[in-house]
């Protein structure tokens, strides 16, 4: 979805930023969005990531982004706990991204 949206709308996003904190995603607030997403998966109760994102995109957008992060705490769990695989066609189409981000080391890569 990320690749599709960024390519279709010609936003030059560096996908490697998803996996590597050193890489700048290259979009406005990209670094702050990634930081918020990482904070979501942690356990600390801390508004630093939210406020840094809010300073660039505004508080409403930052709160919406927090909601998106929360939603993926749902989707990741329902997918992994039920063992839903990625279709072979989709894996072929995204082979470059899978390799670049090292996704094939994830436990469910072989499903």
């Amino acid at each position, binding site marked *: 979805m*990320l690749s599709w*949206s960024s390519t279709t709308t010609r936003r030059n996003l560096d996908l490697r930023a998803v996996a590597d904190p050193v890489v700048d995603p290259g979009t406005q607030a990209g670094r702050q969005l990634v930081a918020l*997403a990482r904070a979501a998966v942690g356990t600390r109760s801390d508004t630093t990531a939210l406020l840094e994102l809010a300073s660039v995109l505004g508080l409403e957008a930052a709160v919406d982004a927090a909601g998106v992060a929360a939603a*993926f705490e749902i989707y990741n769990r329902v997918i992994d706990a039920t063992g839903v*695989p990625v279709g072979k066609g989709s894996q072929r189409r995204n082979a470059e991204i899978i390799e670049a981000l090292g996704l094939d080391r994830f436990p469910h890569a072989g499903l």
Partner: protein
Amino acid sequence: MFSTLADSPVRPEVLEALAGTWEHLARPGTWWTGAQRLAIAKTARAARAHRPLPDVELPKAAREAVAMIAATPSRVTALWVSGITEAIGEAPYVEIIGIVSRVVAIDTLTRLLGAELEPLLEPEAGQPTREMADPRPEHVRTFVPVGRVFVPTFTLSLVPDERATNDRLGDALYMTDPDMENPDLTRGTLHRTDIELVAATVSYENECFY
């Protein structure tokens, strides 16, 4: 309910979905009572925060399932699921997935917004409905039957009430099906690419291959 989020500009439809989810959690479900569902929620909270699990009245396999799904979902394997479902059944396991995923999501949102975790409600009395999915989803390749369409919304098809509840919350927090078709969607200053950057990073951090 969720009054601690009143200081943040949370969209009304999100607040409504959060409140609806919380009330639903305390009601008798399809396979678990209200008290058991709250015990599942309490255990999920502790496991996700890496705290000791509370002493609650749940079968051992159910506690184990809650802890695994809350804390390390990418470590779930077919063999492990077959052990759990042998002990508690496939549909009760699917209901646990729904409860755990929503509690973790809501706690994540409140934590990111710097708010106190929402207190759990008192359980409502009553027995589980034991409603069966009709037609029952096919069992193709996955750990439990989800049908032939491998997308998140179908994962809980075995327990229709859980699927509907997860969909309502997901639609409010992420986007609806019609919005999914729009690569140029904007929500205020947030563009679809921004939304997907957050989604992809959370998935990466959770080691979710999907």
